[in-house]
Each structure stands twice: as C-alpha cells, then as structure tokens.
C-alpha cells in the first residue's frame, strides 16, 4: 500500500483551480472577472484530460486503499468536470459582471472536487469528507443571488443537509463500530459476522446521506426549491453534478456489502419511491425549473436501478455510468434552454418559442424527450441497459416499474413541449425575453446534439465503460 498522491491529480487540479479563482478574483476589477472564469475552465479541462489519461491501465488505489481510481472514478471525473464546464458556459450569460462572480466559480470547483472524492471514496471516512466538501459549497451557491426565494431554498437545503450529514456520520460510526474498519476492502468480511440489525441501521444512515446528495427520496425535499430559487446555472449544477458522485458512491458501497442484509430491496424501494414521487410531484408544476427539479428526483430513481444489482450483473456498472453520462448531458441541455430565457418562468411563456427559435425549440424537444428515454438519445440506451441489468440481476419487476414511470413522466414533459410548438394566442409579439442569451443558447444546441450523438455512438461508450 502506498500513498501515490499523483493518482489524485484531477482532484488537486480542481482544488487549486478553485483557490486560484477565489484569490485571483479578489484582485480583479469587476469588468475583468472573466479571467477567473477562464482559470476555472482551464482547471476543469485539465482535470478531465488527466482523468482520461488516468483511465489507461487497470484500477488502482491511492492513500492506502482509501481512494479507488478505476473506470467508475475515471468516468465520474470526466463527466463531472465537463458537466461543470457546461455550467460555466451557462454562467457566462447569467453572472458575468455580477458582484460575486469569481466566488461562484470557486465554489463550483470546490463542490466538484467534493463530488469526485465521493465518487472515488473506498473508505467510509473519505466518503464523509467528500460528502461535506460537496455539500458546504452548495449552500453558498444556492443563496449567492440573495433573492427571497434563494434564501428560503438555502435555508431548507442547509437544514436538510445538516440532518442528513449527521445521519451519514452516524451510519459511518455504527458500521465502523460493528466491522472494526472503515476501508471497503475489509468491510465485506468485517460486516459478515456483525449483527444484521446494526449493519442495516448503519447502511440506512449512510445511504440517507448519499440520497440527500443525489436528491433522491428521502433526501429530496430541497431539490425543487433549490432548482427554482437558485440562479439558473447553479440550479443546473446542483441537479446534475452532485448526483454523479453520490450514485457512484452508493454503487461502491453496495457492492462491498455482504449478503446478510437485503440491501438490493432497500435500494429498489428507494428507487421506486424516488421515481414515482418525482414524477407525480412534477405533474402540475408551472415553473419550468421547478418541473425539472422534480424530474431530477425521478431520474435519481432510474439511476438507483442498476445500483440495486451492484455486483450481481455484469451489465450493472457500465449501464450506470452510461446513464449518468447521458443524464448529465441531457439534463444540462434542458436547463440551458431555461437559462437562455431567464425571464420565462412559466410553461406558458414558452408558447411559440419553437417557431421563433427553431434550433432552441428542437434542442428542448431533444432534451425533454431524451429525459423520457426516447431513442436515439443516450438516456434511452442508459434506460435500456439499466433495465436489462436489473432484469438480468433477477428483479424483472423493477424494470417494469421503470417503464410504467416512464409513461407517467411523459405527460409533464409534453406539458412543456406542447406550448413550445403551440400557436400564439394573441397576435402581439412578446415584450421580453425575445432574444435568447447567447452562451446558453449555443450550449443548449450543443448539449442536445451531444445527447443524440452519444446515443448513436453508445457502442463506443459502452466499450470504454465496461473495461
């Protein structure tokens, strides 16, 4: 066992990038804050590139086996870094020249660092550190606009985060107490002989913390409020990137648990609850961002499906990574459309948008139908493979539940699509929000195209993910 700190180069790059953005931003005049954005973007690109190089070769561990650098970590690093890069593009329209611009970039990078640590954590204590590092910057980000809604959202998020953080630490403590170790490598054998009740309580505690991070039931209450109350770029970030770390962490933890506790059932229940509740709550939302917020709760449910068969189907891990990649791209595309029209906070205000802005309209359709899981978008391939994995792992019923929920979700996505191509009722042109924000509009088209391209090229992705 060795330290091998260089294996954590992407995380270090992000951390340093965040600090440089923070400090440098303090010395930059308001009009030249874009330099901080450039630094952040450079750090993210560098992290993604080093992560890609890190994927060459077989899995390794760093810091005495407490941090795993394998395919899952590599994919999570690349997807999280590039996802944050996309968020930076959305932020270019929204917060350029705003009072707390460089602070936002610094917090985004620090939170991403936390997400990556969550994704690679192979030790319960590292997991706890990752959780805190990923959570604390988010509180600042949600409230950074200082709007009333933002204040409410940050309060809710903070209180829930504190509660679920305590649950996570409690769970870690119990598991450590009964297993005598926190390292995943020894946890399996350590927990095998431990009393089942204690193990179950510990696992539930840790999972609850991760569900807060992922935004799934039971830790989902903050998601719709934060999605609605925070700025557009921040909303896009916190409904997308933290999930990457949390779900991969859940997968790793579940794969190490012994068969004495029926954790697959627990995960399946959480998955079903997330997807069903998220879908039902999204039904009658009128604010597109709040609707997307609930939709991301349901997406966590789909993301948990392959976790339920962790280690029981060869398809599970690549399917999970594929779904995560697809979800990140597609969800960001949908949010990019909302940041392109920051003033349109009502589904009906999108009426006629598809005719006035055909490319953006098409991007929104691709993104929303993508979230439903329509081929050939990459989320479809993700959904197909995750359900195949869970069926392969012996839970065919969960696959059926996924598809029932998919039908249910179609309705509210269509509630948004319908006005986009609907006829304008009044002849007068709308007075505001006519011209979309340039960066967001380009990002929306790009991410929507990426969602299609990755779906068509899913074979290559799969080959990379199943190494």
């Amino acid at each position, binding site marked *: 066992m060795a330290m091998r700190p260089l294996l954590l180069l992407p995380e270090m790059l992000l951390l340093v990038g965040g600090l440089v953005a923070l400090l440098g931003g303090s010395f930059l005049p308001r009009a030249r804050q874009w330099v901080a954005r450039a630094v952040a973007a450079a750090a993210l690109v560098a992290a993604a590139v080093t992560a890609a190089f890190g994927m060459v070769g077989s899995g390794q561990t760093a810091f005495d086996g407490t941090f795993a650098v394998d395919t899952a970590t590599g994919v999570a690093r690349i997807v999280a870094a590039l996802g944050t890069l996309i968020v930076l593009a959305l932020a270019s329209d929204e917060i350029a020249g705003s009072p707390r611009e460089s602070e936002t970039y610094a917090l985004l990078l620090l939170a991403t660092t936390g997400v990556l640590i969550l994704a690679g954590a192979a030790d319960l204590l590292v997991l706890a550190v990752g959780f805190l590092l990923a959570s604390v910057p988010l509180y600042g980000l949600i409230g950074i606009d200082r709007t009333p809604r933002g204040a409410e959202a940050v309060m809710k998020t903070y209180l829930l985060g504190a509660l679920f953080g305590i649950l996570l630490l409690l769970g870690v403590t119990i598991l450590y107490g009964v297993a005598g170790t926190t390292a995943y490598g020894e946890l399996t054998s350590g927990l095998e002989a431990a009393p089942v009740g204690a193990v179950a309580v510990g696992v539930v505690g840790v999972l609850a913390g991760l569900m807060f991070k992922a935004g799934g039931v039971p830790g989902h209450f903050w998601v719709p409020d934060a999605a609605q109350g925070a700025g557009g770029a921040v909303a896009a970030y916190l409904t997308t990137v933290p999930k990457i770390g949390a779900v991969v962490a859940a997968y790793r933890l579940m794969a190490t648990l012994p068969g004495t506790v029926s954790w697959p059932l627990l995960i399946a229940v959480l998955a079903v609850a997330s997807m069903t509740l998220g879908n039902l709550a999204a039904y009658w939302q009128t604010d597109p961002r709040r609707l997307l917020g609930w939709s991301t709760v349901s997406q966590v449910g789909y993301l948990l499906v392959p976790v339920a068969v962790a280690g029981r189907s060869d398809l599970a891990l690549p399917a999970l990574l594929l779904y995560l990649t697809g979800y990140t791209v597609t969800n960001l595309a949908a949010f990019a459309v909302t940041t392109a029209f920051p003033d349109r906070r009502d589904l009906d205000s999108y009426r006629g948008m598809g005719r006035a802005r055909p490319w953006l309209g098409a991007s929104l359709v691709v993104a929303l139908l993508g979230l439903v899981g329509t*081929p050939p978008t990459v989320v479809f391939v993700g959904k197909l493979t995750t359900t195949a994995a869970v*069926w392969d792992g012996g839970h065919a019923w969960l696959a059926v539940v996924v598809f029932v929920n998919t039908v249910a979700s179609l309705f509210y996505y269509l509630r948004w699509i319908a006005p986009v191509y609907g006829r304008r009722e009044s002849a007068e042109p709308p007075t505001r929000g006519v011209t979309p924000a340039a960066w967001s509009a380009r990002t929306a088209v790009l991410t929507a195209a990426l969602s299609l391209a990755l779906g068509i090229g899913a074979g290559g992705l799969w080959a990379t993910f199943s190494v």
Partner: protein
Amino acid sequence: VNVLSLIVFLPLAAALALVALPRLGDATARVAWVAVAAVDLALVVVVWLRYESPGSGSLAFEEQAEWIPGVNSSYHVGVDGLSLPLIAMTAVIFLACAVYALRETDRPRVQAALFLFLQSVSMGLFVAADLILFFLFFDLSIVGMYFVIAGWGHNDAGRSALKFFLYTFLGSLALLVGFIGLYIAAEPHTFDMVDLADQTPLAGSSMGGGLVLAAILVGLAVKTPTVPFHTWLPPAHTDAPAIGSAVLAGVLLKMGTYGFVRIAMPMLPEAWRAWAWVIVVVGIVSIVYGALVALAQTDFKRMVAYTSVNHMGYIVLAVGAAGIVADGTAQARAVAVTGAVTQMVSHGLITGALFLLAGVLRERAGTYDMASYGGLAGPAPRFAALFAIGAFASLGLPGLSGFIAEFQIFTGSIAAAPVTAVALVGILLTAALFLRALQQIFTGETRGRSVGFGDLRRAEVWAIGPLLALSLLIGVLPRPLLDVIEPAAEVAVELVGR
C-alpha cells in the same frame, strides 16, 4: 452502400437539408419533397426487381454493422417477403402525400422535412432486423406523428395529439419490456431478430413466454390498434391533417401488425400457439365492433378511422388462426398469413386514398359531416369516381385488392378454425356503411355543402389516383405480389409450428 440503408437514410438526409437551409423557398421545398419521395420509390422498385426469396432464417440485401456490441445490438437490416411489400407500400403512400401537399401553404418546408423524417423512420422499421433498431424507429414514428397532428391538425388537435402520444408511447414501452425479456432469456443475450427467431428463447417456459408475449402483444395491439386499445385512433384521425391521417393509417398502423408476423410469431412460437385463441377472439371482436361503431358514425373521417379497426381485425384474426396448429392445415394457415400481409398493403393503399379524399372534403367545404352533403356527384364527378372506387375497394369488392386479401384471410382462417366464419358479418357491415355513405354524399339533389364544391385538382388526382390504381392492379393481377409474400408466409407458418 447497401441499397436498403440508402432507402432509409435518403429521406432523412433530405429532411436535414430542408431544416438547415431555411432560405430554400416554399416552392422549392414542395418540389424537393416530391423528388426525394420519387427517388426513394425508384430505389424500392430496384430492390423489388432484384429481389429473390432468401429462404428460411435469412434476409435479402442484408447489412450488419456494430452499434452497441456490449449488449449485442447492431445496425442490422434486410428484407424478406413480409417486409418488402410494406416497404413498397410505404414509398407509394409517402409519394402520394408529397404530391397531395403540393398545394400546402402552412409552413410547407417544415412539413416536408417532418414527413421525410417519418418516411425514413417507417422504412427503417420495416427493414430492421434488430429489436432495438426496430424500437428506435417505432418510437420515433410516434414522435414524428405527434408533431404532425399537433402542428398541422385542426379542431382539438393538441389534445388528440397528446392522447395519441401518451397511448402509443405506453404501448411502445410495453413492447420494450417484452424485448428486454427476450434479450435476457436468449443465450447468449442478443437483440438480433434473426438469432432470436432461430433460438426461440423462453421455449419450454410457458409462464415466462406468456408474460413476454403479453407485453409484446399489448405493445403491438395499441399500435395496430385492436379492441380494446383503439380509443386513441378516432380522435387522432379526426383532427389530423389529411396527409397525416394517410400516413398514420396507411403506414404507422402496419407497424403493429408487422410486429406480429416479424417478432411475436417467430420468436415466441410456443406462447403464440398457446394464446392463439385469445388473439383470434380479439381479431373477431375488432372486426365486428369496428364495423358496428363505424356504422354509427356521421363523420366520414371518423367512419373511415373505425373501418381501420375493422380491417386491422382481419389481420389479427389471420395471424391468430396461423397459430392454431393442427395436422394438415399448414397450407391453409400459410394462405391466412399471405392474406394478412396482402391486407396490410391493400389497407394502406385504400385507406390512404380515402383519407386524402376526406381531406378534400374538409378543404373545400370545411366539414366531414356526411349529412351536410348531398348530390355531390353532379359538381364533382372526378371526386365521386375516385371516392366510389375507394369505397368499393375498402368493402372488398372482387377485382380490387381488398377482396384478394380478405378472401385469403377467410379461406385460411376458416380452414384452420371454422368458427372464425362469424367474422364474415364484418364484411357485410362495411359494405352497408360504405354504400350508405356513397348514397348520402353523392346521390340525389345537389344540396348543402355540395353546392359550389370544386372538383379534384390535378395534384389531388395524381396523389389519390395511383393509390387506387395500384389497388385495382393487385385486385386483377395479384400474382407478382403474392409470389413475393407466399414463400415468406410459409416460412412464418413453419416457424410458428415449431
């Protein structure tokens, strides 16, 4: 480049070009649409002329390329006697729609792009030899048709489109559940249709096979549609634009029935035989119920929509009867399957024509209500003539394609299961309702909306006429078509008898 891939992707490429070049004028877009549809049809004719029956377990003009090798799904296309006639019918219908839309004024460039996209999707579905590829096109056909109805429909189009989308999407996901079931049961796991038909996974597991077949049947039954899953169809047709209805009825409904013969029968023969009687009963109920409800309609387009339920019922009856295996009935069951495929082609041509004629009614006089017309034969003789041919074809008059199809369906089905003769009452009812419609709209004194009704224009004659001419051609000279279908039907019956 494989000619089938060219047939599939040529319209899509043209659609992208139309979208990407907004400076193309409306006139150019209309003509470009007709030209691309004509080229696609020409390619299909080339395939037809060079086609030779590939025999059991293989496909002609086959092409296979890696797509998602990790889950054994590939871009695999090919044709046989079941798919080739449908590809040809699809190309004809889309060309007819392009010609009909030459006078379109509502965003013709976007409409042309959307229909070209739908054409690619439909062609792709009929040549697909991989379940995921099939599903991809199946789903995209729903998306495309949603935008056709919502964007160019009338009355309550938004609502009808939503109902159509939700309902058929539900069906498509049921289908996907079934596909995943087949994939998991196959050893090694695969989505390849040829492999799956060869393997017949789930053979020997009546429970698993039954459930997977149920999922697939529900999915296909929604799309077809059969009773009791047909309720999305009448509003969708009533509010869709004329060419949208023609494509929906002519092409999209066939995706359901095609799935029966392409997927359900060869891949799950044991379950199919076990459930054959249920399928037969659903077919008979669809036939009789569709005809009875059609008889009660006063709206012409709604009436044609319900006759589609009736006509699809014949196909379901035939494929169901093909699963009632008994010694010495193999030939009869092959006749039934041949009739079913012929009916798919025939119904596409005839109903496509009837919906385009209904579009003329609305365009000229603003209503489909049959009672608003009377004596229309006077001012619009060409319209009356084509309408009469369409009506007679649809009710199964000898000499037209409907007769060839339904005659074979009943010959085969009654030989396999005599009780299916009760469905003959459906033919009587459709005859009655079409004759009544003819009488109501065309005979008597010219009155109501018929006054000042402009006769068919040249583009309309050239769109509708060829469809009916082909129906007549098949009715008089069925051999070229049947020669293609029969070997494939025999293979299908052989596969389901395993």
